[in-house]
């Protein structure tokens, strides 16, 4: 019925399956009908980045609880999906349009912990000049579109970038990530439809954690899966076990390379779980049972991947210890450096509205800075 419903020639994975695609089981045992072909270095790097994401989250949380950062959106539980995305992106060529929960993802792609904390603390360490609340990183040098709070609003621009890549014949791919709640917004649908119609090289990577703040999946949509939404736009949709980095990685790699080769867009429905409340402003006990959270904690993507690696002698307690210590030291230092970078100057408030300052902003700026200087002077004399 759907054009791409059959796996393409040479493709490993089938779209629109009823159960999530998984290449390992919950015990981290390989279950796929093909051979693992990822080298040990990359496997360990994946684990390291997942752990880095988790520890970054912890450190972020410390900053938030201490009152230094005003807000936190945690990525704990999403690490497998996020690191898999990061590892399929071709740095310097591909573009990423992420959402606020993607701290682990953008860190793995190269936004340093210092930059991330700088953004969280709105210090001079933030390449985005402290313009947004915490959880909104971005980097033009890494082709990572700065996160925007407005749900799904980054998806139409992502399609535009993918379309550019196609028109310029660049063999490049755009990946955009979002939660399953975002798929209810008009913008998601309008954008993915355009991507389908234009065959734009873009991957829609949904981190489906079953909740949009308190709203559970069945209230969000009656679609059998987020993957099924691909049918509406002529895209293959893949349901993937999002708690396994390898499952996500293999499916992503296949669709990314297909898109790069000109075979058009795809949609991924990665089944993850958010371990923490929606944000530091949320109280999840109002809407989900503790047991459910507990059940998913048993499926922790880090533990599962540890088991997988351990069976291949690529992980042991000692390495874990060492990794943790190194990473934590780095994070502590990054937080310190970010803080030490110093405050964003007041005068910057008026920059970057436009490329150059028009008269009305010039006037407003002059007046505001004059008033500020006067009131600081008068404060100083008191």
């Amino acid at each position, binding site marked *: 019925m759907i054009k791409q419903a059959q796996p393409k020639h040479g493709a490993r994975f089938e779209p629109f399956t009823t159960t999530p695609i998984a290449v390992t089981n919950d015990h981290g045992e390989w279950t796929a009908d093909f051979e693992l072909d990822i080298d040990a270095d990359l496997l360990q790097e994946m684990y390291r980045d997942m752990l880095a994401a988790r520890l970054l989250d912890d450190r972020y949380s410390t900053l938030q609880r201490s009152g230094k950062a*005003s*807000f936190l959106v945690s990525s704990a539980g999403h690490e497998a999906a996020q690191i898999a995305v990061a590892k399929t992106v071709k740095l310097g060529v591909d573009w990423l349009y992420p959402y606020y929960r993607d701290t682990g993802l953008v860190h793995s792609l190269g936004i340093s912990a210092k930059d991330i904390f700088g953004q969280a603390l*709105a210090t001079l360490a933030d390449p985005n*000049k*402290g*313009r*947004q*609340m915490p959880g*909104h990183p971005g980097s033009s040098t890494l082709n990572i579109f700065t996160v*925007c*709070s*407005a*749900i*799904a*609003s980054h998806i139409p621009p992502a399609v535009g970038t993918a379309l550019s890549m196609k028109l310029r014949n660049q063999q490049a791919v755009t990946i955009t990530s979002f939660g399953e*709640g*975002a798929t*209810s*917004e*008009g*913008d998601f649908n309008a954008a993915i439809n355009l991507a389908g119609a234009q065959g734009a090289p873009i991957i829609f990577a949904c981190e489906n954690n079953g909740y*949009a*703040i*308190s*709203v559970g999946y069945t*209230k*969000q*949509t009656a679609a059998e899966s987020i993957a099924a939404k691909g049918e509406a736009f002529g895209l293959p949709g893949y349901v993937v076990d999002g708690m396994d980095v390898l499952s996500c990685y293999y499916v992503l790699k296949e669709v990314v390379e297909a898109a790069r080769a000109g075979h058009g867009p795809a949609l991924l429905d990665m089944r993850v779980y958010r371990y923490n409340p929606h944000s530091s*402003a*949320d109280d999840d006990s*109002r*809407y989900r049972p503790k047991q459910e959270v507990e059940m998913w904690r048993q499926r922790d993507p880090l533990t599962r991947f540890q088991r997988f690696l351990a069976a291949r002698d690529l992980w042991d307690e000692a390495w874990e210890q060492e990794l943790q210590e190194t990473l934590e030291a780095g994070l502590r230092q990054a937080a310190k450096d970010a803080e030490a970078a110093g*405050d*964003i100057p*007041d005068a*910057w*408030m*008026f920059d970057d*509205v436009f490329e150059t300052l028009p008269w*009305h*902003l010039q006037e*407003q700026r002059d007046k*505001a800075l004059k*008033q*500020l200087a006067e*009131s600081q002077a008068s404060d100083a004399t008191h």
Partner: protein
Amino acid sequence: MQQTIVQTVAKTLFAEMASDPDVVVLGQDVGKRGGVFLATENLFDTYGPDRVIDTPLSEAAIIGAALGMATHGYRPVAEIQFSDYIYPGFDQLVSQAAKLRYRSGGQFAAPMVVRMPAGGGVGGGHHHSQSPETHFVHTPGLKVVYPSTPTDTKGLLLTAIRDGDPVVFMEPKRLYRAVKEDVPEGDYTIPLGTASVRRQGDDVVLISYGGAMPETLKAAEALAEQNIAAAVIDLRSLLPWDKQTVLEAVAARGRVVLVSEAPKTGNFISEIAATISEEILDSLEAPPVRVAGFDTPYPYAQEKLYMTSVNRILQAVQYVLDY
């Protein structure tokens, strides 16, 4: 009983849902979660999922569905989680809700309320702090209300729900828990379109609304210490706005400062200033001066500088007094 603005919203909804079975609430997280600000707390437990509807994450669906329920006899109260997120639903509001009565020749109407926490001061950066009221005021067919006290919240919310037309009900989120106040019991309503004179004073009049009210009142207090008597008007309703009260107050004093936290260019207070100079130019002793947000996206790091501080208001007052 002493209650905050956000408690007043929840209690008023609770009471009106008890007395009118056609009132329903819909939005994101309004159910079990009670709203992210708890403005719909306790409603779900009492009225259940048929009257307290958690919707999918789409403002267009929320506003559109509210409209379709309104045409079918309900009195929906839709919640937009932050006023910054009205835009995905803006078409439903301006192309459908605002024009339905008109374009159908009065055959259909949309008695509905679209509630939204609005304004800055909460460290939310531009997508959790904006003040879009001008967009609503400039859309014929919408009424716009923006209270700044628990009592006004109750009186205006009840009136808005019972009104025959779509009302955009803006709530100053930074004042949600800022003050507690005894709120009149029972069926207390305030007509739309009436301002509230929050302070008397013969020298100058300060006009403001919503989240900027506390600073405006504080400025008046500071002036009082310098023996300058400032009257303070809280507009409360932006459309219709209370022209009579405003013009009388300004004409009597000849000096006026207008305060709004929305960006300056095209701000609704420009409309008031234009009306003042159009209608009572000769009574002006000094130019009507505006203190507003700057014409930048709402900043994060410099929020304090951005806001309409007491200091900025005082400087403007000084200017019109010295003029």
